[in-house]
């Protein structure tokens, strides 16, 4: 009898693990889409912050203030339920997109994380020595060449650690999509719990999946940081300096 109970346990855990693993593409897709969106938008915000026009700078500053000053959960509810209650959104051409909870979660995450990424990029931009820009100017480099050869490569290297932290945060934030009916890893875990009343083992399975995802991302970021570190030559002297 004990054996039968144990078998039932193993079957339940295997079924649950399978259901959770099947939801990984949803979590991963949401992360990748909003990471790309937020990075592009964040770059745009930094460009706007350094723009000559005061209203453009003001809009960028307001955007960052709004999205960094309120919880992502509230932003997700605002995009999903709040905007859907407005007639122009519901009758407008974008309703098929807004009707989809996954799109709404991605949109909210893109807007929110773009504000954090903009702050990271701005910090990196400020850390580039002014002398280098002046030297580039003195060499007669144009705006685009300056950006391509001097500013962007250094920004990338300087911003990477903090930018990587933001990406890890984003992986974790995808779990909030479950609050608006998205069946991601957390959503599936909650559904299993609501129907089986088993809490601890199901949550541990889900937590394990997230730990795997964040761990893999962290390892990837470490590798990228080493590659971009000018004091480390490729392969040979790895870990020698620092």
């Amino acid at each position, binding site marked *: 009898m004990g054996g039968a109970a144990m078998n039932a346990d193993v079957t339940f855990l295997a079924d649950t693990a399978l259901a959770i693993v099947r939801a990984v593409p949803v979590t991963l897709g949401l992360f990748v889409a909003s990471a790309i969106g937020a990075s592009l938008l964040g770059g745009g915000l930094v460009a706007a912050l350094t723009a000559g026009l005061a209203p453009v700078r003001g809009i960028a500053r307001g955007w960052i203030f709004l999205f960094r000053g309120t919880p992502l959960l509230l932003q997700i509810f605002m995009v999903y*339920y709040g905007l*859907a*209650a407005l007639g122009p959104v*519901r009758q407008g051409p974008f309703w098929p997109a807004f*009707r989809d*909870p996954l799109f709404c979660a991605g949109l909210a995450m893109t807007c929110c994380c773009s504000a954090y990424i903009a702050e990271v990029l701005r910090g990196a931009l400020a850390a580039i020595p002014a002398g280098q820009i002046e030297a580039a100017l003195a060499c007669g480099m144009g705006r685009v060449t300056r950006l391509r050869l001097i500013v962007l490569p250094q920004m990338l290297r300087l911003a990477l650690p903090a930018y990587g932290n933001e990406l890890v945060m984003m992986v974790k934030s995808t779990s909030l999509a479950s*609050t608006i*009916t998205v069946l991601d890893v957390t959503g599936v875990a*909650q*559904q299993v719990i*609501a*129907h089986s009343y088993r809490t601890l083992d199901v949550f541990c399975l889900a937590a394990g999946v997230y730990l795997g995802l964040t761990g893999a991302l962290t390892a990837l970021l470490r590798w990228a940081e080493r590659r971009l570190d000018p004091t480390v030559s490729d392969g040979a002297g790895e870990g020698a300096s620092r």
Partner: protein
Amino acid sequence: MTAFGIRAGLACVAALATAVLGGCRDEEGKGADRVLVVGTEGLYPPWNYTRPDGQLAGFEPDYVRILCARLHRRCRMVAMDWDGMVGALQTGKIDLIADSVQVTPERSQVLGFTRPYAMTTGVFVTLRDHRLAGMADKGAMMDFDRPGPALTAMTGRLKGSLAGKVIGVEISGAFDNFLNQTLGSGASIRYYHTMGERDLDLLNGRIDATLEDEAYMRPLLATRDGAALTMAGPRVIGGAMGGGEALAFRPGDTALRSAFDGAIAATIADGTVRRLGLKWFRMDASPAQAAAERKGAR
């Protein structure tokens, strides 16, 4: 070490809480003078809900007041989450539960139920201009306590209409279980954590229909927003959805339970329950009414 520290901390808190809860039991007087503490959720309109000013209102707060007055007992209602309510009853933090609790066999093993004071059906609700508004068996009673060829045929038609549709329900409620058992994988079920969120998505058309308690839906349909909605298809009762709403006591508290049982019988007989139902649900939710309808559907 830290994990152990947390455990130890939790242990202290738990021990303290248990001691405090246990000690509170007889604080408010003894015997028949004692104030009875009634647990309810306060989040399930119109059965019981919390008004913006913090007051509890609804069918059950009204009804408990009437029952206590009949029994010459002083009662005090407290709001708490359903998750902790049975535990609070067992530890004596509260004396009875009035939270539209459905009588089911599993619950009867840990709770002492009175006779039901209400019995309501589940109804499908959809937007007026939705295709599902013309679903088969409109208004017909689907009684899952009476299996037979009629029920099988209705279930088949229901599955046909809902195939490929998105049905929204509150997670782990009675209707969630029912839909899972009856529809299987035919329709896709979308889960919500509160009924308010589900209502918003029903109104903006993100879900095709919902299955909900008729007593909850009637007042909603009477509001300005609810005018866009309509009931569709059959009304469902019995089976996984339980045998009506009753008060719940500790199983050992038989004297108190039978006193309330008598008061419930009297208020059903003199029409008080019917009157309260019309006030809060816009319908007679008394068990007698449901029994008559179920008999008529035969």
